[in-house]
C-alpha cells in the first residue's frame, strides 16, 4: 500500500474520527437529524480539511512554531468562510438546515488536530490524502448516524419515505420522535460505537486484530494533536513490557 491510499484507509477505518478518535462530537450530535444533513456537513468539512491540510503543509516551514495555532486558525477560517458562502449561494436549503454549524467548522477539532499532528510535519501530497481520508471517515460516520436517526425518527432515508407511515389508524410506521431530538443522537452514536467495539473485540479474539489507532508510542505528548483526549493507555502498556 503506498502512502496515499494508506492515509485514506487510515482516515476511514483505522482512525475514523467519529467512531474511533471521537473527534468533532459537536457537529456529530447536532446536525445528524437526517442523512442528507450528515452528508452535507461531512462533505463541507472534508473540503475545508483537504484545503487547509494542503496549505498548512505548504507553509509548514514558514510558520513559526510559537504562533502556529493562530496561523492554522487563520488558514482554516478563510476556507470555512469560502465554503460557507458557496453553500449559502448554491445549496441554500442545506445552508438553512446546518445553520451555525458551518461557521463552527473553524473550531472543529478534527481540522486543527490533523493540521497539528499531520499536515505541519508531512509533505503536501500525503497531507492532501490525509485530509481526504479523515474527511471521508467523518462523512461516513455522520451519514451512518443520520441514516439511523432518519429511519427511526421519520421513516425516511435521504428524504425518501421507506417505511410507510400509519395514517388514520391504518397499519404502518409511527415515527419515534425522540430520535430526531438531541437524546436520540446520543443513543445512536453510543450504539454504533458499541457495535464497532464488539466487531473489534471479536476480531481480536480470533487472532486477527483490526489495526488499532496508533498511540503516542514516541512519548512526544507536546506535539501530539490528540494529547487532550489521550488516556496514556498505549504508553502504559509499552512501559509494562519494558519492565517485564
Amino acid at each position, binding site marked *: 500500500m503506498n502512502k496515499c491510499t494508506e492515509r485514506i484507509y487510515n482516515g476511514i477505518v483505522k482512525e475514523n474520527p467519529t467512531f474511533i478518535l471521537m473527534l468533532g462530537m459537536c457537529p456529530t450530535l447536532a446536525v445528524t437529524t437526517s442523512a442528507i444533513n450528515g452528508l452535507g456537513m461531512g462533505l463541507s468539512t472534508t473540503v475545508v480539511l483537504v484545503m487547509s491540510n494542503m496549505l498548512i503543509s505548504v507553509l509548514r516551514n514558514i510558520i513559526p512554531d510559537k504562533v502556529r495555532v493562530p496561523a492554522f486558525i487563520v488558514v482554516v477560517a478563510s476556507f470555512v468562510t469560502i465554503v460557507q458562502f458557496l453553500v449559502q449561494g448554491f445549496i441554500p436549503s442545506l445552508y438553512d438546515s446546518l445553520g451555525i454549524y458551518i461557521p463552527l467548522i473553524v473550531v472543529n477539532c478534527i481540522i486543527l488536530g490533523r493540521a497539528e499532528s499531520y499536515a505541519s510535519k508531512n509533505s503536501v501530497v500525503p497531507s492532501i490524502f490525509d485530509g481526504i481520508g479523515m474527511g471521508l471517515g467523518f462523512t461516513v460516520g455522520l451519514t451512518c448516524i443520520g441514516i439511523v436517526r432518519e429511519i427511526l425518527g421519520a421513516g425516511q432515508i435521504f428524504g425518501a419515505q421507506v417505511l410507510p407511515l400509519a395514517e388514520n389508524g391504518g397499519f404502518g410506521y*409511527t415515527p*419515534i*420522535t*425522540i*430520535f430526531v*431530538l438531541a*437524546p436520540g443522537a446520543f*443513543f445512536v452514536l453510543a450504539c454504533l460505537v458499541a457495535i464497532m467495539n464488539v466487531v473489534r473485540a471479536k476480531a481480536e479474539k480470533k487472532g486477527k486484530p483490526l489495526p488499532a489507532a496508533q498511540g503516542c508510542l514516541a512519548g512526544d505528548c507536546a506535539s501530539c494533536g490528540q494529547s487532550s483526549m489521550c488516556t496514556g493507555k498505549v504508553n502504559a502498556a509499552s512501559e509494562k513490557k519494558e519492565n517485564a
Partner: protein
Amino acid sequence: MSDMYNVSSSPHVRSKDTTDRIMLYVIIALLPASLFGIYNFGLHALLLIVITILSCVISEWAFDKITKRKDTIRDLSAVVTGLLLALNLPPTLPWWMAIIGGVFAIVIVKCLFGGLGQNFMNPALGGRCFLLISFTGPMTSFANSKYYISQGMDAVSSATPLAALKAGESVNTMDMLIGRIPGTIGETSVIAVLIGAIFLILMGVIDLKIPATYIITFIIFVLLFGGHGFDWSYVVAHLCGGGLMLGAFFMATDYVTSPITPLGKIIFGIVLGILTGIFRIFGASAEGVSYAIIFSNLLVPLIERVTIPKPFGKGGER
C-alpha cells in the same frame, strides 16, 4: 466439634429481606392500584399491564443470555419495573408502544449500566419519559374512566384533572380521591395507591423520609407559588392529581436511585418537591412528577457525597 465453636466470617446475622422478597412486597403493594386501573379502564389496561411486564422480563432474560451474564430475572425486579411502567401509561396506548417502553427501560436504562443496583435512574420512569418524548400524542391522550362513561359523558377522551386545574377550571376532589378520573392506569386512585403504600411502610420496605419530605415540600411550594393562596381544595387537588402519590411512595423510594444516608433522603425529598412544583406550576405541561424524579435521580451521587455520616469517634476531624 459442636456448633458452638463454629468459626465464620461476618455477617453473622442475616436478614430475611432478600431482593426477591422486597420486590414481591412491592408487587403486592401495587396490586390495589393495578386492579382499580383494570376495573376503571377495562380490559385494554389489563392487556397493557401484562404486555409491559412480559416485555421487561423477556428483554432482561434475552440481555443476560446474549451477554452471557447470570440470569437475573428471578429477583423479580424486571416484573416490578414492568408493572410500574404499565401503571404510568395511559390506558389507550397501543400495545407495541408499551413493548418499546419496556425494552428501553430494561435494556438501556438498567442492563447496559450493569443491571439492578447500578442503574442511574429509575428504569420505569426512564421508559415512560422515553415514550413521552417519542410518542407525545398517544402518551398524553387519556381515555375517560368507566364512571364518566356510565354517566353518559364523552367517552372518547378528556382532560385530566391536572390539565383542568392548569386551565383554571374546578375539579371534583372526591372523584380524584377515589379515582373516577382520566389518567394513567395506576395513578388515578389515591386510595388504592395509599393502601399499597401503607402495606409497604408496615412491612418496613420503604421509609417515610422521602415521601413525607417530598409531599410536605410540594404542599409548601403550591401554597407559596400556586397563585391560589391558602386554598386547601386547590392543594388537595394537586396532591391527588397526576402521579404524585404513586411517584412519591413507589418510585422516589426506589433503593437504587435514592440516597442511602438519612439526611440525604430528606434533601432528596425536598429537591423532588421543589422540582415537581416548578414543573407543574411554571412548566408548559400539567404533570411533572416523572421528570422531577428522574432528574433528582441524577443528583443522588452528589447528595450522597455531601451527606456521608461521620464515623463514631471522628467527630472533630474533617
